[in-house]
């Protein structure tokens, strides 16, 4: 388990964290700066502030893959989950899956609460007001409630609308677990494993599963609060009581997980705020490209789909599943062995069944690397025949939740693009790729490497097509 503050120090140590002070920001809202940093595939940012908590943006997101880059969108999260940032994407997916109900656990461990300082109120946090916000905003929170079954976690976000009042959105399924004026604790600045687990439970709609039964309990030491258990290393805990289950809440802000399941507004009355000595909490420029909440939703959904499709047919033909944040989670990409003619149809349709986010699936050959979105964005137009490999269903499918069209619930078509080779084709039909390995015999490759190194002291990059 890596506490959030330690995680930021790790990013800093890797040269992947930029620190800005109040004076640097002038009067530009942090969410605008955060969005521009993401748009530019820049570093995560820590905002050192004289008043209130320090902030961090981009901590759960990363660079886009519109160009070849050394880091991947999930590299930071991998570091936060205790993995090698340069390790495989599948290891990230499997680690995320293990944080949920599919993971093994011997039950929670407990530790001393890091947030030992009681603040005067929620205003003392001085959370930032976004460019389009009326009130200071709270994002990337983890709601914790206790029931007879245990503690339940879910994502939560909202606004601070008064000295003691929050208006928030959280999954309706979480709110339904309690029916009175129970306490909800909001944890800000939790270990990356904890917020990832909260997102995983949300996108899989497994919020009724207590975290004591999830793998995250094995990884993240916990501590009780007046709500439910929270990670002991949490930077800020806001203990609240449900004041109104049907508040007049006009905010348009929606975190990306809300595309996966129904959310509900709540008005919360703040009971107590506790924080570490030098608290730092993450925030997401919600609604902007590559935002942290978008990335968390995409990678947890991908983990879920990868786990489900590879446990469905008794074998594991799928190499990886990806919901690119660059496509706003509206497209699902899957690399697979095409087991037999028609398997691609089965695979696409089971992905449509397992997720309501998207209604477009792209299927690529198993040898395509998940880091090589560039190849995917070439192959869909080059390998997929525009007449035969862009397959539209009859227009009776339910509308996907992420796209902007057909939000009135009308049915329509789903599309899958088969950019994998047809298993019925003779080998001679299949065009070999142009690559360094395939284009030159070994002696020429070695001579070229040697000649190139004499000019460029560093290693050569021979990845196919610059991937």
């Amino acid at each position, binding site marked *: 388990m890596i506490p959030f503050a330690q995680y930021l120090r790790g990013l800093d140590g890797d040269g992947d964290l*930029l620190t800005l002070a109040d004076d640097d920001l002038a009067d*530009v*809202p942090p969410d*605008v*700066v955060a*969005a*521009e940093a993401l*748009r*530019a*595939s820049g570093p995560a940012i820590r905002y050192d502030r004289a008043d209130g908590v320090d902030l961090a943006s981009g901590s759960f997101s990363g660079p886009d893959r*519109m160009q070849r880059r050394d880091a991947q969108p999930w590299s930071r999260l991998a570091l936060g989950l205790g993995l090698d940032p340069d390790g495989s994407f599948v290891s990230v997916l499997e680690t995320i899956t293990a944080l949920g109900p599919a993971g093994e656990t011997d039950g929670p461990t407990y530790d001393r609460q890091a947030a030992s300082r009681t603040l005067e109120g929620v205003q003392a946090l001085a959370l930032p007001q976004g*460019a389009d916000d009326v009130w200071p905003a709270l994002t990337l929170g983890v709601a914790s409630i206790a029931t007879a079954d245990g503690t339940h976690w879910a994502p939560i976000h909202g606004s601070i609308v008064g000295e003691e009042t929050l208006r928030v959105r959280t999954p309706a399924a979480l709110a339904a677990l309690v029916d009175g004026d129970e306490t909800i604790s909001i944890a800000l600045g939790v270990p990356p494993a904890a917020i990832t687990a909260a997102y995983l439970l949300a996108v899989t709609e497994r919020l009724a599963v207590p975290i004591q039964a999830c793998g995250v309990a094995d990884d993240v030491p916990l501590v009780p609060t007046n709500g439910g258990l929270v990670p002991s290393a949490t930077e800020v805990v806001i203990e609240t009581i449900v004041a109104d289950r049907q508040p007049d809440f006009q905010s348009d802000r929606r975190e990306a997980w809300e595309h996966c399941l129904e959310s509900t507004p709540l008005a919360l009355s703040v009971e107590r705020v506790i924080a570490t000595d030098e608290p730092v909490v993450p925030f997401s420029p919600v609604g902007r*490209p590559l935002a942290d909440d978008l990335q968390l939703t995409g990678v947890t959904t991908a983990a879920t789909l990868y786990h489900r499709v590879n446990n469905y047919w008794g074998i594991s033909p799928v190499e990886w599943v990806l919901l*690119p944040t*660059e496509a*706003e989670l*509206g*497209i699902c990409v899957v690399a697979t062995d095409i087991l037999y003619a028609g398997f691609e149809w089965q695979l696409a349709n089971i992905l449509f069944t397992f997720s309501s986010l998207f*209604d477009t699936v792209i299927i690529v050959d198993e040898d395509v690397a998940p880091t090589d979105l*560039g*190849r995917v*964005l*070439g192959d869909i137009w*080059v*390998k*997929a*025949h*525009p*007449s035969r490999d*862009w397959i*539209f269903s009859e*227009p009776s499918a339910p509308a996907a939740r*992420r*796209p*902007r*069209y*057909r939000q009135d619930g009308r049915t*329509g*078509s*789903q*599309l899958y693009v088969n950019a994998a080779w047809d298993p019925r084709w003779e080998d001679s*039909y299949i065009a070999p*790729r*142009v690559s*360094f390995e*395939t*284009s*030159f*015999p070994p002696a*020429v490759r070695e*001579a*070229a490497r040697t*000649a190139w190194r004499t*000019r*460029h002291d560093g290693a*050569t990059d021979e990845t*196919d*097509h*610059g*991937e």
Partner: protein
Amino acid sequence: MAADSFRDYLRVLAADDALVTFDEPVSWDLEASAITMLANLSDSEVPLFESVGATDVDAALAGDPYRGPRSRPWDHLAQSFGLSAGLSGAAYYDAIIDRLRSPREPRLVEPECAPCKDVIHTGTDVDLLSFPWPYVHRSDGGRYSNLHTIVAPDPETEWGRWSSHRMMLHDDALASLLFLAGEQVPNRYYYEYEPRDEPMPVAAVVGAEPAVQCSTEMWIPTGRSEAAFAGGLKDRPVDLVPCETNDLSVPATAELVIEGHVLPNERLDEGPFGDYFGYMNGPRRSMPVFAVDAITHRAEPRVPFCVEGTGVGYGQNSSSTLQTAAAGPDATLGLRAAGFDVGAAVPWRFTSRTVWVIATERSYPGVLHELANFIFTTWGMLHIDFFVFVDATVDAHDPRAVLSAIALNADPDTDFHQFGVERMPKVPLNIYQTPDEKGSADVGTSKAKTAKAYIDATSDQSAADDADAESLRARAQQILVDAGVSPEPFDLLEQRERRGGEQL
């Protein structure tokens, strides 16, 4: 520094630290191509091979010289036209379109003033194989010249028609040309010269100045001259000089000019070749024969070549860069001239000759259908299969923004058009048709037809006035740059500082 010759262009690269020279011997037989592929894959400097062994002529090879940086593929060409480095895609397109709006007629110079006439070989003195034509991929059918301008006669323009068709060398005086019916010069050969049993005079211009190479990639309407648009691009006339053995005129500063005729009813093998799709295409097929009558060249000519197949996915090479930097602005201007309210027509960065993005207003119902059909019927549509239409407010140069538009706006139910309708021709270079479907490719098109499709990824919502938001974004970008983030990816700073694109 503007470039009036290919050598000038290499000096532009050198001044920008974008050229690396190899003095030690490098073989044309795969080795130069392999090193160039490493350069392309690592987004590094353009390699210039000064010492190429086993050739009679002391020539150099330049590997993918027009490849630009991945972040701004047009950057080197912009500088060669006297524009600033570091322009955004939109600013570069604006500047090039301004230039193309003012074509400059070429200037005919005397042969003694033409560097391409430094050395002249005619008749039996011609030896095509005395030059270091590269063997590019080990599965290719032979050695190729694939970064040149084919000059052919055109009754409607004084200066002929310029276009690009790869050439496979066969012996000291014969080559085969990839002529695909549907393109202007091949059409004239297949449907005018060959039926009359008449050889078609052509000249292959190798190592022309960048403005010539760029206009060669453009789709110039009949009756207009690529030579004049090349002059517009560089803002002064291109110098031309008459050929030695036919009535054509060729760029005077070219490194090498091969004069000859495309013979009627004669064919030689062509291909296979590792092509711009990123895959080896085949099978080998028969293509028209180019019989060489004369070769003229500069002393110690520099011969450019392209490692095809490396300009897809994340990669860039000369052909992908020329599509983005030359064909794109030209197409944008062409669509505007046809009356369409087009912000930009930009090749898709990951496969630039297969799909294009067009940012446009939907000014009246049905405009996208009309625009698509206009393009499908007036452009050389053998290569391009797809168009993606996005709102005019979407930056067509930003593939992430385009991908988002497709994902969020393009309804599979209503916005994917003409998929499944196999009515249009296709080059047999493609990899999604079977060999049977490609057939013998008598005139360079597949036996089977294909679909030409378009995607409406425009939004149904009107764009909000976001001037304030853009101002905030620009200030945020400046904050990040001041804090040490590279200014390279930021769009609003450079547009603010470099609007207009003219070099100061």
